[in-house]
């Protein structure tokens, strides 16, 4: 528990970091350093994006997996570290 706090604090203290959001596999934000509305917005938007990116990588090479995702924009960069594959996804047989 304390290690979690320590890790998050370490990340937050890095130069240029504006905020951290921890989201579980269902898309529910668990921990956040920014206000609720921003958290909800990011969580909702990122969830589908991560799904898409992950499925793309795995479609190209099933042995591969998504390790990190960076979205660089004019004003800032969103960095996403996805956890293990969510329990919700299944393997779809193509027809």
């Amino acid at each position, binding site marked *: 528990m304390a290690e979690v706090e320590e*890790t*998050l604090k370490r990340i937050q203290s890095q130069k240029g970091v504006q905020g951290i959001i921890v989201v579980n596999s269902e898309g529910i934000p668990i921990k956040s350093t920014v206000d609720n509305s921003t958290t909800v917005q990011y969580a909702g938007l990122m969830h589908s994006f991560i799904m898409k990116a992950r499925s793309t990588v795995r479609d190209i090479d099933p042995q591969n997996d998504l390790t990190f995702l960076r979205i660089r924009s004019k004003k800032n960069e969103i*960095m996403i570290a996805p956890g293990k594959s969510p329990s919700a996804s299944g393997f779809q047989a193509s027809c």
Partner: protein
Amino acid sequence: MEIVYVYVKKRSEFGRQCNFSDRPAETNVDIQPDPSQATNFIERDPIDAAIQCASDMSEHEVNTERFEMENEGVNHLEGGWPKDVNPLEMEQTIRFRKKVEKDENYVNTIIQLGSLMEHCIKQNNAINIYEEYFDEEETADVADEPPSAKTINVFRDPNVIKRTATHLSWHPDGSKKLAVAYSSLEFQRSSKDMSYESYIWDLENPNRPDLVLRPSSPLVSLEYNPKDSHILVGGCYNGQIAYWDTRKGGQPVELSTVEFSHRDPVYGMIWLQSKTGTDCFSASTDGQVLWWDIRKLTEPTETLVMDISRKGVLENALGAIALEFEPTMPTKFMVGTEQGVVITCNRKAKTPAEKIVGTYSGHHGPIYALARNPFFPKNFLTVGDWTARIWSEDSKESSIMWTKYHMAYLTDGCWSTIRPAVFFTTKMDGTLDVWDFLFKQNNPSLSVKVCDEPLFSLRLQDNGRFIGCGSKLGTVTLLEVSSGLCTLQRNEKNLATAMFERETKREKILEARHREMRLKERTKAEGKEEDVKVETEEEKPEEQLARVQKEFFEIIEAEIRRKERAAKLSRAQEKEVTDENEDEDLYKEE
């Protein structure tokens, strides 16, 4: 084994008509299998056979019909919460969160991801890999690509009965919107079903106009207020002036009274520079130029009658079509008329007679466009009949430069806002010409066929890159010109200045000479009346012959003399050379 089938037909039966009949099948030959033949063949094992297991595919083409799209926003609140947790209740959410945090899996994952995240953040902080690397090197000489123009978008008149797009005006900031005035300019051609509406289009959405303006009579000209981008003023077909505020919707905020307005369609409408930003002036073919203050459209603040004899008589007045006003010279303005004359006027003159300063005539037909060069305000462009002409304010007799006579009537023109020697013109055959006078003066640098119907109006966006052209059927085409035509070349300003000065000087010299000749003729005409009739001797034929003979012999003798002189000269030169040689020999001997 030979198989033969024989049939017989009598000669007398040849040529008879065919009589077809049906009969059951007959076996002609029956060949039984012969196992002894198998010994001639060897069985082969294994065999390579290629097969393909692929699904059958077929190709279909489908084209959807155009459908209307509308953009709408969706508000997403919060989701994903399990059924027992109410997302609005703070306690339940906190409890849920705490439960998740206690999970061991969670802790491990976070630590692992945390280190990964830290690594990337440090990477970012260490070096910015997306920085501008080659900033210092400017783009090398722009490749001499041929000039080109590309159609970006097309806005069509949504009504069934198409009207001409007579005037275009870009939105003052950002130029994301385009206001187009639609009306039918042909005399008495407008049917009663023709709609009076004019539209403001948003460049992103060519399917539906952004705003619909509903005047009481079709709009012939329409202009955005450069100071306040919500205000537009428009001149109607029946001579009234109306102004709109886009925040208030499609109905005009105010309309001028019929008695004091123009009596003919208002072809020209320009905003003036004033402290209040509400002054504008309008011109129409009834011969008047009226000044208005938007706040009080009941009557014009000032009037001027376009009468060149400076008497202010309306009957003699010339119909005004094009207006020109340069904000840097607020007291002067120019009017282009139906009769092909450009009139310069001074607004601040004391008497109406002095208001008209000068005239320039040179066109055979109505002047449809009048524009000052934004870089050289002394030179202006007029477009009318079959040519486009460039004038200098100093030379009043004729234009300093002009294009050749085209096959089709020219309808509109304007200068480029970036390059001083480039201007655009539109023609009745639907082509847009781009002229670069520094490069080529006989032909346009680029001629683009925009559409099949005549083009009536043209407007360049302030950045000089996009042009909107309006056609007879109400189609407004948005074109983008290639970068060569809208980036300032080096030395262009100097070259253009030199060219204009040179042409102006030439015109001045020509004018001076004309004046001298006229003066001479006038004095000669006066002089001749005083002299007695001068007799002119007529040469008799014999005298002519004698004279000719004499001249002939004179020429021959002159030739002979010349040849002798040349021969003497060459002989003298030879002697010199031999003398030199002798000297040399003598020298050598010594």
